[in-house]
C-alpha cells in the first residue's frame, strides 16, 4: 500500500482549512518521518483533529497539500485510508456485536485476506489482552477494554501509519499504561504513529517529536526534551520564612540564570536556565535572604512549556 519512494509518513505543506469565515488551520506545514511517534498537542479547538481528519481523508483542505506515505490525500484517498489505522476519539465500535464480530467486520471493510484472517484477529485480541472476552458483547465492556479493542481493530489490517486521537481519554490508569505499551511496541515494529493528546505526560512518554498547535497555527515543533529546555533546564519550588519580599524577588529576577519567578505567599517557583552550578548559586542567594523551609528541584513539564508558548493552559 505504501509508496516506497517516500521517507515521510506524513507531509503537510501550507495547509489551510476554513469553515466559512473561521480558519481552523492556518498555513500549517510539518513532516512526520517514517517510524517515529509524532504527537500533535493543543487545546480543544486548536485544529489538531481537523488536521488529522484531513490526513485521513475525512475532510478536504481549503488549500495546501497533504501527502501520506507518498499519496496525495485528495487524489488517492482510498489508498491513504487503506494504509491508515485509526483509533478515533469516540471509540466507534458496534456495541451490539461481540469483540470478534467487530474485528471480522473491520477485516471485511479493509479487505483483509480470508486466509489467515481468523488467526490475525485472534492475535490482535491476544495483543490487547481481550482473548477471553472475544465473544462478549462490546456494550458490556469497560472504557479501557473498548479503547484496547479499538486499538486492536486499527492494527488488524497491518497499517503502515497508525493514528490515535486521544488514545487514553477516559480510561483508567492501568489501561492507560497498557495502551502506552502497545503504542511503543508499534514503534519498535517500525510503524509510524501519529497521536493527538491533551495529556502532556502521555506526549512526553510516547512522542519522539511534538508539534504544538494553537488557533490552527504551529507554535512549536521539537522533541519533548528540547521543548522543555526552551522553557528552562530546572524548576525550583521553594518555600521560605518569612515569605519572599518584593526586593528579594527583584534581585532574583536580575540573576542571569533565572528565567522565571513566580510567588504565591511563602511559595516561590524559580525557572533556571543552567546547570547544577547555576542552581547552587540561586539557592545560596535565597538562603542568604530568608530561611529555606522546603526545596524541590525538577524538570519543567509540558504544561509549563505550553503555557509559556501560547499564553494559556492546555485545557482552557
Amino acid at each position, binding site marked *: 500500500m505504501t509508496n516506497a519512494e517516500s521517507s515521510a509518513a506524513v507531509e503537510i505543506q501550507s495547509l489551510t482549512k476554513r469553515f466559512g469565515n473561521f480558519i*481552523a488551520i492556518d498555513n500549517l506545514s510539518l513532516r512526520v518521518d517514517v517510524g517515529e511517534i509524532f504527537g500533535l498537542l493543543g487545546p480543544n479547538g486548536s485544529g489538531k483533529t481537523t488536521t488529522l481528519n484531513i490526513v485521513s481523508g*475525512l475532510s478536504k483542505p481549503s488549500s495546501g497539500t497533504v501527502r501520506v506515505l507518498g499519496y496525495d490525500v485528495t487524489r488517492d484517498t482510498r489508498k491513504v*485510508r*487503506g494504509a491508515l489505522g485509526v483509533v*478515533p476519539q469516540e471509540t*466507534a465500535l458496534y456495541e*451490539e*456485536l461481540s469483540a470478534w464480530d467487530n474485528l471480522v467486520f473491520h477485516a471485511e*471493510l479493509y479487505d483483509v485476506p480470508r486466509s489467515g484472517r481468523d488467526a490475525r484477529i485472534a492475535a490482535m485480541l491476544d495483543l490487547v489482552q481481550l482473548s477471553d472476552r472475544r465473544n462478549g458483547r462490546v456494550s458490556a465492556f469497560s472504557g479501557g477494554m473498548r479503547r484496547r479493542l479499538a486499538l486492536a481493530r486499527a492494527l488488524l489490517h497491518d497499517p503502515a501509519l497508525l493514528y490515535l486521537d486521544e488514545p487514553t481519554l477516559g480510561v483508567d490508569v492501568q489501561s492507560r499504561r497498557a495502551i502506552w505499551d502497545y503504542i511503543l511496541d508499534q514503534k519498535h515494529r517500525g510503524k509510524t504513529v501519529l497521536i493527538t493528546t491533551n495529556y502532556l505526560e502521555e506526549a512526553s512518554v510516547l512522542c519522539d517529536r511534538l508539534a504544538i498547535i494553537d488557533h490552527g497555527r504551529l507554535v512549536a515543533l521539537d522533541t519533548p526534551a528540547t521543548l522543555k529546555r526552551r522553557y528552562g533546564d530546572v524548576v525550583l519550588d521553594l518555600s521560605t520564612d518569612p515569605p519572599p519580599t518584593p526586593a528579594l524577588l527583584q534581585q532574583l529576577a536580575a540573576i542571569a540564570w533565572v528565567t522565571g519567578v513566580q510567588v504565591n505567599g511563602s511559595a516561590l517557583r524559580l525557572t533556571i536556565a543552567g546547570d547544577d552550578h547555576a542552581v547552587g548559586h540561586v539557592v545560596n542567594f535565597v538562603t542568604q535572604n530568608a530561611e529555606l523551609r522546603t526545596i524541590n528541584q525538577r524538570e519543567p513539564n509540558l504544561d509549563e512549556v505550553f503555557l509559556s508558548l501560547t499564553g494559556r493552559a492546555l485545557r482552557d
Partner: protein
Amino acid sequence: MSLAYDLRVIRAVAVNDIRGSLVDRTFTILSILTPINFLFLMILFVLSGGQAPTAVVLQDNGPYAREFVAAMERSQSFIIQETTAARAQDLLRQGRIVAIVTVPANFDADVQSGTPIDLPVVVNNLNVDFTNDIRRAVPLSITSFYGEEFPNRVVVKAAETDLQPRDTNYIQYLSVSILVVGLMLGGLLQAGSNAAREHERGTIKELLLSPAARWAIETGKVVGAAVLNLISAAIVLAVVTLVLGVRPLSFSEMVGFSLLLIAMFVAFGTLIGTLARNRRTVIPLSMGTALPLFFMSGAFGPANWGSPVLAAIARASPVYYGIAVFQFAFHGFTTTPSSVVANTLILVGFVIAAILLSAFVLRHASVAH
C-alpha cells in the same frame, strides 16, 4: 480495489446492519408495525368511506318494491338496512345511518299504472360527501330499476364499452395503493433508522475511514434494510391478498414489483437517514415524506385524472410509478400514460439515483472537527 472487494463490502455492511437491527428491536418493531398500522388505518377509512349506511323502509312488499331495493344494492353506493320507520328514525337520530329511503305503500300499483311516485329520502346532510352520494345514487337506482323492469320505456341508454376486462371497485383499487404506502413507510423507516444509527453511535467513522467505496457501503445498507423490510412487506401483502381478498393477476409480477419498490424505498430511506443522522428525526421525516407523496400520486385514482398541476407534480414522484406498476400487477391496467416497462425502468432509475445520492452525501459527510 476490485469488484469482488466491493461485493464483499456490500455483503458485510448488509449483514452488519441486519444483526444490529435484530438486536436493537425497538426501531425494527417500529419499522414493521408502522406500515401495518397505516394499512389498517386506511382499510378502516376505505370501509367507512366507500358506501353510505342507509335505512330502507318498505311500506310495500311487492315485486317492484323488492326490485327497486335490489337496484339500490347494485349501485354499490349504499350499505342497506331494511327496517321500520320508527327504527329508521332512531338510527338517524343516533347518527348510525346517513339517510332513510322510504318505498311508499302502493309502490307496485303506482309503478304499474304509471302514476308519479314521490320517494321520500331523508338525509343527514352534515357531510356533503355522503350527502352527494345519496343525491347521486337514488336517481341512479331509479334509472337502473326502470332499465331492468321496463326496458322499452327507457329509450336513452348508455352504450358502454369497457377498456378493462373487468371492473375494479374502490376498495380493490385503493388497497393496492395502500400496499405501496405500506412498503414505502416500512422501507423509509427501516433504512432510515439503519443509516441514522451509524451517525448516532459514531460508527459512521469506522465506515468513512475505511477504503471501501461509498456506493458499496450505501448499497450494503440498502440490501440490509431491504431484507429486514421483507418482513413488513410480507405482512402487508398477506393482509391485502388474504384479508381484503384483493388478489394479483400476476403473482410473479407482484413479487417482482414488490422487490423493486422495496429496493427503491429503502434506497430513499438510506438517503434520509444519511442526511438526518438521527433516528428521532427519521421518523417524522419519513412520515412527512410518505403521506403527501401517497395522496398526490394517484392513490385514489389515476393522478392524471386530477388537476394538471398536481398531475405534473405527481409525475416527479416515485410513488406515482410505484402505484402504477402495482395496479398493473394486481388489476392488469396502467394508471399512467407511460407503459409498464417504462415505469419499471423509471423506478430502477430512482433506485440508482437514491443510492448514488446517498453515496454523495456520505462522501461529503463531515465528521467531528
